[in-house]
């Protein structure tokens, strides 16, 4: 009985009248557009309709009654009122968790702490509110690749405003962040490799509570992902110096939005960032030079091993074990690069020495494999000579035998 009642209730809900959609779909232009967009909205799929945001009564065809203020009709929502309207449901844990127990409900609290939220509170309607990022009427789940806040689309969404030089001018902030970000190693990981965990705008600035990181907190922001580097940096001689100079830790060497792929060029050579502060013959310059040189030495040794092992493998030699060891060697190279953030040559020396020992071992294995290949080829050559000599001998024997013989008659049963 209960099941039947539930089915009837569902059927009634499905057939429930929605005069908003019915009437607006018959209209033109901007008055009809929301009805089309709303078809794909995540809220519609969960049973919400126009009246949940705009108020009014969708059960009647009479516009006077359906859009009556007395029935709660709010009409077009003012930009300053949007966050509160969304928060009406999204800050209600009891309601939201019915639909998704893992869904956070602190967006409004976060938004109020953001630059966007604080400016909106002061009446600046140019700043972003919920619908500027999540869209309106066709809001998708964040995990949907069509959502403007999906990791792959978020940088473009932020840049809608932040790349608009005219719009940013009055706030005194640059508008080249997006262009710089698109030249960064982070963008490459996100866009080219499709790595959704790669950082985009919100990873460093936060999303609802979007705020530019303070100079003192940059290392903490980068350290969210680059934990080991942050730990080493905090213990390094650079940390108190940069803090005193009010420079933002990591960004001093790596930049912020345009973070390039870190190479030893940062340490030594023409584009060395160390050289910006340290003379080449100073103590700091020497440490940078030693760190860069030892890392290059390890990389070259591992490359040499890769080359000879690759040749051996292409020759059909079984070198999977030394290739596996090479991975350990490469791990030491990574460790050495991480150790640079201690800005101490001794910290880099240990993983470099470990890596060099492995590289020597794998190079020996490669040379041994190549010697074995040559030995096999020599054995093959000698075997082929012996086989050829035997075949010639057999051929001469056949000719000799057949030269003396006469053909024989066919036996019975042949043919």
């Amino acid at each position, binding site marked *: 009985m209960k099941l039947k009642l539930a089915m009837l209730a569902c059927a009634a809900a499905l057939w429930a009248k929605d005069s908003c959609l019915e009437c607006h779909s018959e209209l033109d232009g901007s008055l009809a557009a929301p009805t089309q967009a709303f078809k794909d909205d995540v809220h519609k799929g969960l049973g919400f309709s126009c009246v949940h945001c705009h108020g009014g009564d969708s059960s009647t065809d009479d516009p006077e009654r359906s859009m009556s203020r007395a029935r709660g009709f709010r009409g077009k929502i003012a930009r300053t009122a949007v966050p509160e309207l969304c928060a009406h449901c999204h800050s209600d844990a009891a309601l939201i968790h019915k639909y998704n127990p893992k869904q956070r409900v602190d967006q409004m609290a976060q938004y109020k702490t953001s630059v966007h939220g604080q400016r909106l509170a002061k009446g600046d309607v140019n700043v972003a509110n919920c619908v500027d990022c999540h869209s309106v009427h066709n809001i998708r789940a964040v995990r949907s690749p069509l959502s403007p806040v999906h990791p792959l689309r978020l940088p473009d969404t932020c840049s809608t405003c932040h790349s608009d030089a005219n719009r940013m001018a009055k706030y005194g902030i640059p508008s080249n962040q997006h262009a710089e970000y698109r030249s960064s190693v982070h963008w490459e990981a996100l866009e080219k490799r499709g790595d959704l965990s790669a950082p985009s705008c919100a990873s460093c600035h936060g999303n609802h509570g979007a705020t530019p990181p303070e100079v003192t907190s940059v290392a903490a922001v980068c350290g969210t992902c680059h934990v080991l580097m942050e730990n080493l940096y905090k213990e390094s001689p650079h940390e108190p110096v940069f803090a005193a100079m009010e420079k933002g830790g990591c960004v001093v060497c790596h930049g912020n939005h345009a973070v390039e792929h870190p190479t030893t060029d940062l340490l030594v050579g023409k584009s060395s960032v160390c050289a910006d502060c340290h003379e080449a013959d100073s103590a700091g310059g020497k440490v940078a030079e030693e760190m860069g040189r030892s890392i290059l030495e390890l990389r070259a040794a591992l490359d040499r091993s890769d080359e000879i092992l690759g040749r051996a493998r292409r020759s059909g030699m079984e070198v999977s074990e030394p290739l596996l060891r090479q991975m350990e060697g490469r791990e030491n190279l990574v460790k050495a690069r991480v150790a640079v953030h201690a800005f101490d040559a001794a910290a880099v020396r240990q993983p470099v020495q470990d890596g060099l020992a492995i590289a020597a071992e794998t190079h020996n294995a490669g040379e041994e494999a190549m010697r074995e290949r040559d030995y096999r080829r020599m054995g093959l050559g000698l075997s082929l000579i012996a086989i050829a000599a035997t075949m010639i001998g057999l051929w001469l024997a056949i000719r000799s035998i057949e030269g003396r013989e006469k053909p024989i008659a066919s036996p019975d049963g042949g*043919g």
Partner: protein
Amino acid sequence: MLAARENEKRGPLGWLEDRLGLESVREFIAHKSVPKHSATMWYYFGGITLFLFVIQVLTGILLLLYYRPTTAEAYESVQFIVTQVKFGWLIRSIHSWSANLMILTAFIHMFSVVFLHAYRKPREATWLSGIALLGLALGFGFSGYLLPWNTVSYFATKVGTDMAASLPVIGPPVARFLRGGDEVGGATLTRFFGFHVAVLPGITTVMLLVHLALVQRWNISVPPWVERQFRDRGREVPRMPFAPNFFLRELMAWYAALAGLGILAALFPWELGDKADPFAPAPAGIHPEWYFLAPFYTLKLIPSNVWFIEGELLGLIGFGLLAVWWVCLPFWATDRAGQVKTRLVTGAGVFLLSYLAIFSALGYWQ
């Protein structure tokens, strides 16, 4: 007393000859002859196939000394063979290459029988036993492919047993029997090992003896046009003694096969690949051994559903009918008067050979 003295003169060989009756064997070999004509070279492929089979058996026995048929140890044991065991790489490589060459020479032998029309009465049973041996060779290939337990072999076996499972009624139990469960795993490896080193060799040995006995019983066939040519000239088809003439030529062919095998094994050692990981996704571009490529590619071309029949099932039914038609070749190749329909058989042979060559090439390159 006199006989005893005679044996003493001839030594241990004479003693053996008296007890084994080698005199009659020698007599038999001395009188055995083989036709000698323009197509004689095709006769050697049966012998080469046999030679490669013997190499398979010998190298297989050597591999058995180190191979361990469990999912935890199979890959590592083969890796040990090719890296640590003296000449282990050579033994494994020769085993793998000779398996492939054996199937190639078996196919050449089969098509030479077709194009030389050697399946004619009374050699129907010889044809059937030969086809059975080819099927067993493919079985050796399929079961042996899994044994190194690497990624390619794992997924190829998965695809192969999935195909078997798609057959109606008998498919699921057959696939379950082959796998020893619902998925390819440790039980499958153990079973395939058992098939490869015990069941198939046993059946093959019996079938090989039957095949050789039938070849001996009915002698080697002479193509109809060769018979006609010599008959028109009023001459008999010339023959050469089996021993030593034919045997020495066959020996040359074996040496040539051995040289080819040595070149392939030394210059292109059979790769081991990466260890199978049942939880990893199938690598891109995975395909079976070359001799299964043609049906594999054909199945890929068939739409998922044709009318109301599942595409894969339709393909398998088609291959089944094709196999039956081919096995029955001696029975539809001759008319009621016993005359061979040479054009029909040659056309069928060309069709099948072209299909296998083209679709295998397409399957490999695409």
